């Protein structure tokens, strides 16, 4: 993981959006894409089926420009949420600097959320990464749905967020909470820079 390259003075952060199928990972990326000035974003690569399901993964490079003399780039990835694409998920997860777990707030999706979170942990472990040491934030998406269909942030925190990670209610379709989530994960990832240089 070459997060900071002092020689080339580059910072590259790989952030992976993880979560169950149809929880809104790609939507997150689309919203970010729509807000980044054209000059700053690369081509968003999206391999989607006709029914808007991510088949392989989405990739969105963002150039944040020179920050403290470092060319800073963010690479946002999503994984396909469907259970049977686990190999792809594991591949995409490789070398991730941080993970955004996008949970589906719908009450009936709770089990899928839990299963996906466990899958994340297992896949990270396959890469030799302890989930407890990796920057991770939770996003409770689809909070705009009618109250009776969804769980509140508090409920979801109780169900998923046993490690007291930063969590954000979101409506990715309309952009609510998207940048808050991204900001939080970026800060966590970048804070590791300091520790990275201590080595």
């Amino acid at each position, binding site marked *: 993981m070459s997060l900071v390259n002092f020689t080339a*003075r580059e*910072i590259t952060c790989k952030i992976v959006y993880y979560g169950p199928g149809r929880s809104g990972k790609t939507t997150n990326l689309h919203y970010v894409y729509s*807000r980044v000035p054209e000059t700053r974003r690369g081509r968003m690569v999206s391999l989607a089926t006709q029914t808007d399901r991510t088949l392989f993964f989405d990739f969105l490079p963002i150039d944040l420009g020179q920050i*403290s003399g*470092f060319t800073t780039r963010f690479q946002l990835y999503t994984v396909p949420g469907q259970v049977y694409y686990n190999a792809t998920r594991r591949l995409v997860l490789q070398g991730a600097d941080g993970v955004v777990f996008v949970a589906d707030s719908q009450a009936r999706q709770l089990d899928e959320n839990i299963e996906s979170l466990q899958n994340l942990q297992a896949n990270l472990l396959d890469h030799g990464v302890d989930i407890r040491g990796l920057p991770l934030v939770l996003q409770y998406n689809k909070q705009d749905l009618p109250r009776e269909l969804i769980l509140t942030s508090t409920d979801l925190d109780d169900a998923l967020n046993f490690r007291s990670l930063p969590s954000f209610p979101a409506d990715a379709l309309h*952009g609510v909470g998207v*940048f808050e989530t991204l*900001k939080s994960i970026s800060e966590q990832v*970048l804070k590791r820079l300091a520790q990275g240089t*201590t080595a």
Partner: protein
Amino acid sequence: MTTTLNPKFTFETFVVGASNRLAVTAARTVSENPGSAYNPLFIYSGSGLGKTHLLMATGAQAKKLAPGLNIEYLTLDEYVEAFHAAVAAGQGDAFRRRFQNVDVLLVDDVQFLTGRAEMQAELLRLTEARQAEGRQIVLTCDRPPAEIAALDERLISRFSGGLVVDMGVPDYETRVAILRRKAEERGASFQPGVLETVAAAEFVNVRELMGALNRLIAYQAVNETPINAEAAKQVLGLTAAPAPAGARAPAGGGSGDEFAQFVSDVTVTVGKAVEAWRARVAEAILRWEGEGYRTHRLEALLEQDAPAAVDDAITAFITDVERLKALEAEVATLDPQAAGQSIFRDPEHMPEAEAAAARVRDGAGPPPAPSPAFPMAQFAAGASNQVAMSAVEAVLAQPGKKYNPLLLVGRSGLGKTHLLNALGLALAQRPGAIVACLSTQHFIDELIAAIDGNRVDWWRARYRGATALLLDDIHLLAGKERTQEELFNLFNRFLDEEKQLVFTAPTPPGALAGIEDRIASRLGSGLVAELTEPDREVRRGVAERLLAQQQVRADAALLDYLADRPADSVRALAAMVQRVVGAATAQERPLTAGLAREELEGQAAAGERRRTSGFRTSGIVVSSAGGIRSREKMVWDWPEPSDRVLEEPR
């Protein structure tokens, strides 16, 4: 140049709310204990939230509590401009001195520091000087120190070292309170609900709030009718619900804003993270510079763009500094003067520092200790040395108090040196004792070497550090004026500090030639204990011990024989014992009284055998004729046995 304090700005007129309580408390504390509470106190808040008011209130309160205090208020710009003017007029130092006498310095608006290196330097110097002298400095700014762009890390940490407090936007209740008080101050009264309406409008700062209030007062004065809440809203243009500052733009609008905000947030984070090593280096520099160490090595790190192993470098630096500290501490115990050397403050020159410490160590190790070859247990006591022995025992019981100095007098070879060293060894066993025990000749040589090496101070310090000084053969001081001078000073110091002094001399002090009277009289001022020729008891004891040392089993007859032999000194006796032991070894016969007699009284002793037996001891060859007492009449060495035969009376 200095602005006078505005009398309206006091703590009494300052409305305290949740958003500024901490800042006000801190400012009050500072005004009550200038220089000792929070120094520096750094207050930051947005514009128009009362920084200047608080700053002036601090000054006013401090002045009120202690009218003698010298208090100055000025903005940083004013300070630096005045400083430049003073420098231009060649009065820079005088200007700085003037500020050194200010007890409470209030500096407003320090935010204009960005990119102004000399101004930062000046502020750093000012802050440091004030902290060092325990004089208060209070600064205000519109942002926290870390957010002042391009601000020297040292300044940031200086500020953070005191107290950094912020004042937020006052909450609704505080705003109402402020409006009421200001309205009252201006003699205006409003209908119920009017001020509450104004307060609800969320003006971003108090200054705007005051502007709104002024407008209402003016409106009411012009119209001569009390204004009501609705009218107030209209006057202030509040009919449309005011968008609170910082409200989120509705989703879908303001494209790019979110991203810009994101980038600026990330920039701050990256800035903190990437530049964290700089902060660490700066912190290390600050720390060690503060302790007086040179930090070029760390400063060089800062000049690099991305040093490889900052923390290793810092660790290495700290290791070096710790080593320097250890060296300095070691040197300080040996030679306090040498410890002040700047070489112990420069981690760039470790080898030099080590060398300097080694020099000190060589020059000023502990003074020579008594020789372990002379333990008290081996000293044969008897009537001839009873006085000396009891004196030594008294000294051991109360070193420095009873017999000080103790002078052991006696001819050579009577055991003075043994007794001196034995006493030294016993004294050295006391906790914390440093016993200097050496021959006077050695003492003189050391002094000469010290004078030669220009380190007489070390030499002196070494002996001054001792708890007892035992000098053998003090008569050797004769004619050594400088040594006598040094000894005289040392002597007095030891007496003052009740540290034991013991000397040996061949004759009583009065008979010592070439010794200054002041020393001779002092030598005699304690106890002069004489050792006389060994009596039979001593001789027997010595013989027994010597034989035991040679691992020879001595029977009573042999010991009696040896004890009965005339010997004018222990040394002569030692030579005698050596000789009979040698003879017994050479002849491969057990040592008996008979053999001893045979050997000592010259019966059938072949010269050659004697030669191989090597009876030369202590530098004195004892004649086979034990009865000969006069050395002048002795023939020291016989080349051939036949020669001897010729000389012998027929």
